[in-house]
């Protein structure tokens, strides 16, 4: 298979996922306001869990758990976006 531009782009996205343990763990803008204004406790936990907090469960090393979560998510989102576009194209031509 010939190397195409988007192979490079996908590899770059996977590289970013590998960097994910370096991300700031500070609360984001919305969480900061929720904490400061006292409504953080109104947040309800999800009633189901797959890979909560972007860490694959059962892996002791947090960096490894985060990287794996990032790689799984990146590949999954790629597959869904790509398949959706292919499906749309097929439907449009039908």
């Amino acid at each position, binding site marked *: 298979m010939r190397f*195409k*531009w*988007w192979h490079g*782009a*996908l590899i770059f*996205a*996977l590289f*970013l*996922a590998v*960097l*994910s343990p*370096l*991300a*700031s*763990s*500070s*609360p*984001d*803008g*919305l969480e*900061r*306001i*929720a904490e*400061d*204004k006292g*409504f953080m406790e*109104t*947040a*309800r*936990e*999800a*009633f*189901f*869990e*797959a*890979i*909560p*907090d*972007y860490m694959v469960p059962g892996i002791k090393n947090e960096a490894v758990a985060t990287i794996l*979560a*990032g790689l*799984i*998510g*990146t*590949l*999954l*989102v*790629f*597959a*869904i*976006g*790509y*398949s*959706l*576009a*292919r499906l*749309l*194209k097929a*439907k*449009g031509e039908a």
Partner: protein
Amino acid sequence: MHIPDGFISAPVAAVGCVVAGGSVAYAVKATKKKMGEKQIPLMGVLAAFIFAAQMLNFPIAGGTSGHFVGAALAAILLGPWRGILIMTCVLVVQCLIFQDGGLFALGVNILNMGIIASFVAYYIYRGSALFGEGRKRKLIGGGLAAWFSVVIASVACAFELAISGTVPLKIALPVMAGIHALIGIGEGLITAAVLNLIMATRADLLELQKA
């Protein structure tokens, strides 16, 4: 800016689901006739890039972080409707697999970070074409479009929190817009950097949103 369940009331969540559902349905209809061969891998890699980049929270002032949203980049490259579809893919996976953003709040999150952010960015970027067509104009227009997309999405979020009775608007609005005015600088820089890279390597990809 992912709203968890509990921050917004049931009526606000319901309106979000209806608006998001209707918009995604229309986006499917509007884009299927115009899906070219080049768009297919671009939809996939943009979704992948946005997901990965969203994980990389960067620190801003006062022990707060922000992260890339990506709707502006998607809407600039592929148009607002495909941008909405890409953001929906990312937000659905974040919600269902990573428990980031509530299930009942999913519609509102798609509304803010998908629909509102895509349209704001797209029209500001297209509007910036009035000031010329050069490379510099495109980068500045793209960066500004990205900044506004984040700030306006955060304003929408403040209204949703206020309508839900979670926090008064006069408190939520200045704080949300203020923090996201800073986060938006990161969004603008990343968006302009990616556009710059694409212009240098594959300038043809910048023309796909017209299709």
